[in-house]
């Protein structure tokens, strides 16, 4: 059967080109792979090859012709012995024009998760008073007891018992197969963990701090977060990336950054930032059980703080739900991680001046619990966001935008942001103090949105 050769598209953007030269002449025998012609595009001169063997029966576009649209028939190839007269019979299937894409949905129109995660279960049973550090360890130990596929890997997690002693005792209980010291190669073991998750395991990858996870950022985003989508839902990565995030104390610019907004930006990730020991335990257990990649942002300063935690191995907290830590009618304060405690202190101070602040512990930064924030703002009509990281494109900026979209008419004052100073973290004690949010700043911001 005769086949038509069409003007090919030689790049993702080419619409027309010049037929620069015919390398074969009418009547020539061609074999698969033979160069037929040279085509000039705006970028380069390229050759087109024959796919099938046959005779170049007819040239339809003369050499030197410019502006030949893609898909124009330029020649006809017939099988050996076939009559050129048959050409007309060979119908060339015109490429089906792509259906016009549906109008792009605006961000606001993106469907919200249909099923809001369950509200935190009411708990009235016995509690234990433990540190955030112990809560994290207990969460991992309980999940490792429950599921053989769960394992922990990272730098110094096994024999050293954790750079911050989070994995204390885990090597003894679970052995070196499941508690694994890695070389100092974040990109390598970050990617290896994701591959293990593809392969059916449930890795917990500890980063000594999230400052170092930046070396694995490509793997976290391009391999962990995007694969479920790129595979049309076939293959997800059930993995937890955890470790301390944000400033500790006096460790300088490279060891003191909050990465919350970096990860919260990425569809395909869940991002959790616990404050209390109960948050830490309940949310880490949920993160380990979650079938998606979860970035779990801890805080070094909180590790030693103690809180009451439900004494119940079945206790978990839902990812995607914020918690109102202190109710109040006058102003809403949103915070996560270490800033929750400072916001509660600020609320205490504000109360002495007759301002009742409602403090929301965000707990999850992606998906953000918009409903809880909006409901609170509908009541208080004022909002202060608090975060330790930089203000530009930060979590506060996101919450301010969300509130504009969902509760603009409820606002009685512009949203105020309290954030770290927009500078690399300085070392000097006085400068570092100036770079981090303070209780006083939160109090001042709350008063200003109350016009007091």
């Amino acid at each position, binding site marked *: 059967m005769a086949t038509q050769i069409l003007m090919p598209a030689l790049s*993702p953007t080419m619409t027309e080109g010049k037929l620069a030269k015919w390398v074969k002449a009418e009547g020539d025998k061609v074999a698969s792979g033979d160069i037929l012609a040279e085509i000039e595009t705006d970028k380069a001169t390229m050759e087109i090859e024959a796919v099938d063997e046959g005779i170049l029966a007819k040239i339809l576009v003369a050499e030197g012709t410019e502006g030949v649209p893609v898909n124009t028939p330029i020649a006809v190839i017939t099988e050996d012995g076939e009559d050129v007269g048959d050409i007309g019979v060979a119908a060339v299937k015109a490429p089906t024009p792509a259906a016009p894409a549906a109008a792009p949905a605006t961000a606001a129109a993106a469907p919200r998760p249909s099923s809001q995660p369950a509200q935190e279960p009411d708990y009235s049973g016995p509690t234990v008073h433990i540190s955030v550090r112990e809560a994290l360890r207990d969460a991992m130990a309980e999940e490792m007891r429950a599921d053989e596929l769960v394992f922990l890997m990272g730098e110094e997690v096994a024999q050293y018992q954790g750079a911050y002693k989070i994995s204390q005792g885990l090597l003894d209980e679970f052995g070196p197969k499941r508690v694994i010291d890695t070389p100092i190669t974040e990109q390598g073991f970050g*990617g290896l963990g994701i591959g293990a998750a593809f392969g059916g395991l449930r890795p917990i990858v500890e980063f000594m701090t999230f400052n170092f996870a930046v070396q694995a950022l490509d793997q976290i985003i391009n391999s962990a977060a995007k694969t*479920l989508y790129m*595979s049309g*839902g076939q293959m997800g990565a059930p993995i937890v990336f955890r470790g301390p995030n944000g400033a500790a104390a006096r460790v300088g610019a490279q060891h003191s950054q909050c990465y919350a907004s970096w990860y919260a930006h990425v569809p395909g990730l869940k991002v959790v930032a616990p404050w209390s020991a109960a948050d830490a335990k309940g949310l880490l257990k949920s993160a380990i059980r979650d079938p998606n990649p979860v970035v779990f942002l801890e805080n070094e300063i909180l590790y030693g703080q103690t809180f009451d935690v439900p004494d119940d191995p079945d206790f978990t907290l839902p990812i995607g739900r914020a918690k109102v830590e202190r109710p109040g009618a006058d102003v809403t304060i949103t915070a996560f991680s270490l800033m929750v405690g400072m916001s509660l202190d600020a609320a205490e101070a504000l109360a002495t001046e007759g301002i009742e602040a409602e403090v929301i512990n965000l707990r999850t930064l992606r998906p953000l619990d918009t409903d809880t924030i909006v409901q609170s703002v509908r009541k208080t009509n004022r909002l202060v966001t608090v975060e330790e990281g930089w203000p530009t494109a930060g979590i506060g900026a996101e919450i301010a935008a969300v509130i504009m979209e969902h509760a603009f008419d409820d606002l009685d004052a512009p949203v105020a942001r309290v954030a770290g100073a927009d500078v690399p973290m300085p070392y000097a004690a006085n400068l570092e103090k100036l770079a981090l949010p303070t209780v006083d700043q939160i109090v001042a911001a709350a008063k200003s949105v109350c016009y007091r």
Partner: protein
Amino acid sequence: MAKPPNNAKSAPKHKKGAAKKNKSTSSGVNAEDLLRFYRQMLLIRRFEEKAGQLYGMGLIGGFCHLYIGQEAVVVGMMAAANKQDSVITSYRDHGHMLACDMDPNGVMAELTGRRDGYSKGKGGSMHMFSREKNFYGGHGIVGAQIPLGTGLAFAHKYKEDGGIAHAYCGDGAINQGQIYESFNMAELWKLPVIYVIENNRYGMGTSIERASATTELYQRGASFGIPGAQVDGMDILAVKAAGEKAAARCRAGKGPFILEMKTYRYRGHSMSDPAKYRDKEEVSKVRKESDPIDNLRDKLIAAKVADEATLKDIDKDIKAIVTAAAEFAQASEEPDPAELYTDILLEA
């Protein structure tokens, strides 16, 4: 996913693992297997040619990296694979998917961005996966698949399922730091992984000599104590033999192995490659002298495993499969607009 309906004349089902030893030829490989390899290589060649055509017609968009010339590598390696083994590679992945026995219809429909593609049209040429066939992608960040493949090997060992990971990368990728991080852990933990370096002499337009301080790539594991071998990647039987040796070592718990496959890509890096970095004679010389399919064809005839008529029948068969795949890929609809927001997270 909506599994692409199986083409009646579907790709030849290759049996991974122990092959029946009947009618052995001089190569020690039986006739049935030789014919199967021939079919598989030819399927990849014709499939890729068709993909190139569809690209030219504007039916395939974006990047499209063809595997033409390198067919013996993946077909030979799969001849040394077991059912439970896993495979992972870069964006030059169509050949690997076909060799993993994935459905040509589903692959082609993904190339055209249609709903019956392996990723429902959401992945494209560079991003396809099949849990069923243990094919783990399809990765577009040069080198990133190597830590991932090392993790697949970690999972094989952890689960003690007897499988090994086949992790492929290019001669350009081999200079990526994360690959050496992976080599280190793989040897340290004796992970069952074969690193297959497909040395086709170029990373885009940069020849290996212009990119690599040392060009004997099979030695790249030396500082970790990983053994390696250089293989004629244009000779499927050489590839198969090397693959079997490496796999046996991995399965015996002795850790990773590196195979450098000396091969060549005939086409441009992707479809929009003006090919100014090499001359035509170089390409036509390889094509003429060491084409993997022609090589095997000559062997088949010489060993009287097949005659011209048999080979012509195979040709026709393959052509029909590829034509059907192209038709399927054009008939399948674009994904439903509602798919834009699906498959981002799994229900917890």
